[in-house]
C-alpha cells in the first residue's frame, strides 16, 4: 500500500497489534501536554458511553512534542475512565501514538494523512478527528460526529458551533460564503478541526494523494470537505456547542490564510467542472447551524484600520499585479478615508477576493505572496464587519452574513467570466 512508505515500521507494528477496529479517533498533537490528558479522557468517556460494543482505537499523530504529550496519550487508562463514567468497556480501547514528519508548515495535513492511513489499514467503519486545542470538548461530541456515519450512512459530518459574533471572521466573511456560492452547498464550517467521516470516503481521499500534488500548500481538512462536495458524498452538519480555543491565536492570520484560502484557491482549478455548474443545496443539519454569543469583546479596531491603510499604501505595486486597476483605485480611496467614514463594502470585498482567486490561478506573482497580500485587505473587511455589527443582535449578524453570501453568489458570473478569459 502507498501509505506504508510514510508510516514508520514501529507504527505499522502497533497497528498490526491492534488488528481491525470499528472506530478510529484521530488526535493530532504538537506540544499539547497541558490539554491532551483531559481530552483523551473525554474521548474515552465518549466512546464508552456511545459505543461500548465497538472496537475502537485512538490514533495520536504527534509532530515531535517535547513536553511529554505522547506519554500522556499512551498512558491514558481505560479503567479509570470506565470507573468515572460508570460505564465499562466491552471491547478493548487501544490508544497508540506515532511521530510524523513535521518538517513542513503543514503539520496538520501530515497528521491527518497519518490518521487516514491508519484508519484505512485498521479497516475502520467510521473515523472522527478531534482537536487537542478545544478547551470545552464534551464526551457527546464523539457520538454527535460518529452516529450519522454509522447509523445513517453519511460520509462526512461537519460541526457547527456557538461562537462569539466576532470570532471566526475568516470563516464568516470568506470561507463559508465563497464555498457556498461556488460549490452550492451550505456548510458552515468548511475548515474544522473536529469532524467525522466514513472509512470509504477517507480511503478515497487518501487515494487522491493531494499531499504529493505540486499545488498542495496545506489545508488538507478544507480539501477534504471540498472533496466530499465535488465527489457527491453525503454531508451532514451537527451542532456541538461552544467553540473555545485553549489559546487565542489572533496574530496568526497569515498561516490561517495559507491553510484555508490557499487551499480553497488551489482547489478551484481542479474543481472547476464541479463549481462552474453547481446548483444550490443545503447539507442536513442536526440542531442549529449557527448560534451567536454577544458578550462584550475587546478588539483593537484602530490597529486593524491602520494595518489596512498601511498595507494598501505599501503594497500598491503588489496589488497592481493581482487586482484590476479599478479595484486598486477603489481600495486606495477607502484607505484614505477617515475613521468615521471608513467602510469596505461587501461588493468590493467579494470582487477583491474573486480577483485574488484569478491571480492565484494565473500565478500572476508567487502564490504565497498572493495569499499574504490578502491579509491587509481582510483586516479592512474585519474592521467594517466589527463596525457594522457592533450593536447587532444575533439575528442581525446572521442577516448580514446571509447578505454577504448572496453577494458572493451574485458576483459568481464575474468570477466565471474572468476564469474563462484565462483559459
Amino acid at each position: 500500500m502507498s501509505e506504508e512508505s510514510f508510516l514508520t515500521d514501529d507504527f505499522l507494528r502497533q497497528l498490526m497489534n491492534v488488528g481491525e477496529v470499528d472506530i478510529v479517533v484521530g488526535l493530532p498533537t504538537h506540544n499539547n501536554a497541558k490539554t491532551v490528558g483531559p481530552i483523551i479522557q473525554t474521548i474515552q468517556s465518549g466512546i464508552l458511553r456511545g459505543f461500548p460494543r465497538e472496537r475502537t482505537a485512538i490514533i495520536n499523530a504527534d509532530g515531535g512534542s517535547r513536553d511529554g504529550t505522547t506519554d500522556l496519550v499512551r498512558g491514558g487508562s481505560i479503567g479509570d475512565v470506565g470507573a468515572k463514567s460508570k460505564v465499562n468497556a466491552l471491547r478493548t480501547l487501544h490508544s497508540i501514538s506515532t511521530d510524523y514528519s513535521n518538517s513542513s508548515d503543514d503539520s496538520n495535513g501530515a497528521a491527518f494523512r497519518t490518521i487516514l492511513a491508519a484508519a484505512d489499514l485498521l479497516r475502520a467503519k467510521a473515523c472522527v478527528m478531534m482537536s487537542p486545542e478545544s478547551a470545552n470538548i464534551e464526551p457527546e461530541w464523539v457520538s454527535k460526529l460518529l452516529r450519522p456515519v454509522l447509523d445513517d450512512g453519511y460520509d462526512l459530518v461537519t460541526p457547527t458551533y456557538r461562537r462569539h459574533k466576532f470570532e471566526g471572521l475568516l470563516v464568516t466573511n470568506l470561507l463559508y460564503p465563497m464555498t457556498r456560492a461556488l460549490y452550492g452547498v451550505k456548510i458552515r464550517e468548511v475548515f474544522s478541526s473536529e469532524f467525522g467521516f466514513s472509512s470509504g470516503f477517507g480511503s478515497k481521499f487518501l487515494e487522491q494523494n493531494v499531499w504529493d500534488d505540486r499545488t498542495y500548500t496545506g489545508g488538507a481538512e478544507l480539501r477534504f470537505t471540498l472533496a466530499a462536495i465535488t465527489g457527491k458524498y453525503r454531508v451532514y452538519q451537527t451542532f456541538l456547542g461552544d467553540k473555545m480555543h485553549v489559546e487565542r491565536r489572533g496574530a496568526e492570520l497569515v498561516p490561517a490564510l495559507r491553510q484555508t484560502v490557499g487551499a480553497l484557491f488551489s482547489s478551484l482549478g481542479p474543481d472547476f467542472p464541479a463549481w462552474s455548474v453547481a446548483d444550490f443545496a443545503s447539507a442536513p443539519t442536526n440542531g442549529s447551524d449557527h448560534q451567536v454569543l454577544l458578550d462584550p469583546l475587546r478588539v483593537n479596531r484602530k490597529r486593524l484600520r491602520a494595518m489596512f491603510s498601511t498595507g494598501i499604501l505599501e503594497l500598491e505595486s503588489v496589488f497592481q499585479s493581482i487586482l484590476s486597476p479599478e479595484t486598486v483605485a477603489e481600495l486606495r480611496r477607502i484607505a484614505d478615508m477617515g475613521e468615521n467614514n471608513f467602510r469596505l463594502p461587501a461588493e468590493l470585498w467579494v470582487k477583491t477576493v474573486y480577483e485574488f482567486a484569478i491571480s492565484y490561478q494565473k500565478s500572476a506573482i508567487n502564490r504565497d505572496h498572493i495569499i499574504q497580500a490578502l491579509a491587509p485587505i481582510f483586516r479592512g473587511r474585519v474592521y467594517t464587519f466589527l463596525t457594522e455589527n457592533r450593536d447587532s443582535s444575533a439575528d442581525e449578524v446572521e442577516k448580514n452574513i446571509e447578505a454577504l453570501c448572496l453577494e458572493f453568489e451574485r458576483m459568481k458570473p464575474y468570477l466565471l467570466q474572468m476564469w474563462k478569459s484565462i483559459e
Partner: protein
Amino acid sequence: MRALIIGELSTAFHEMVRGFAHFLPSLIVMLIIAVAGWLIAIIVKVILRSILRLIKFDKLSQNAGTSQLLAKAALPPATEVLSRFVFWVTWLGFVLLGIYLLGIFGLQDQIARVFVFLPRLFVAMFIMFFGLLAASFFARAALLAAVNANVPSPGVLSTAVRVIIIIFTTSMVFEELGLAEQTMVVAFGIAFGALMLGLAIAFGIGGRDLARHFLEKRFVHGKREDNNDELSPL
C-alpha cells in the same frame, strides 16, 4: 626603360591579380559563411522566441522587474530583446568566423579573444537576470512580511533588501566579465559595509526612541496586545 617599367607594372598587376585570385575564394567563403550565419541566426531567433513564449518568459521577466526597466527605456518586451540579442550574437559570431578564415594578420588574435569572451558574457547576463529576479522576489517577500507584522517603514526594509541583492549581483557580473575586478570587490565591500554601518547608526542612535519603542512593542507589550486585541480568524 619603358619596357622595364611596363614589365614591373605588369608583374605587379599579375601579383595583384594572383593575390586577389588567391584571396577571392576566402572572401567568397566568408560571404557564404555570413549569409549562412544570417539564415541560421534567424532560425535560432525564431526557435528561441517560440521557446521563450512557451515558458512565459515575459511573465518571469515582469516578476524580475526587467520588463519595467525595458519599458522605461522604450525597448520591446524581454522575449523580443533576448531573441534579437541572440540573433545578433549568432550572426556576429559567423561573420567573425568568416573574417578569421580570411587569415588577416593581427585580426585573428582579436577575434579569438571575442570568442573566448562570449560565454562569459552569456553567464554574466544569466547572473544579472536571475539576480534581478531574486531581488524582486525577496524584496516583495520582505515587504509583505513587514506589512503583515506591522513593522514600521516596510518600504525602506524592502528597498534595502532589493539594493543589497542588486549590489551583490552587479559585483558578481563584473567579476564574471573580468572588468575592474579589484575595484568592484573593494567598492562592494565599502558599499555593503557603509550600508550596514549606516543602518546600525540610524537604528541605534538616530532612531533610538523608535528602536526602543519597536523592541518594547515587539517583545514586551506586543505579544500581550496581539493576544488580547486580535480575533481568532478561524
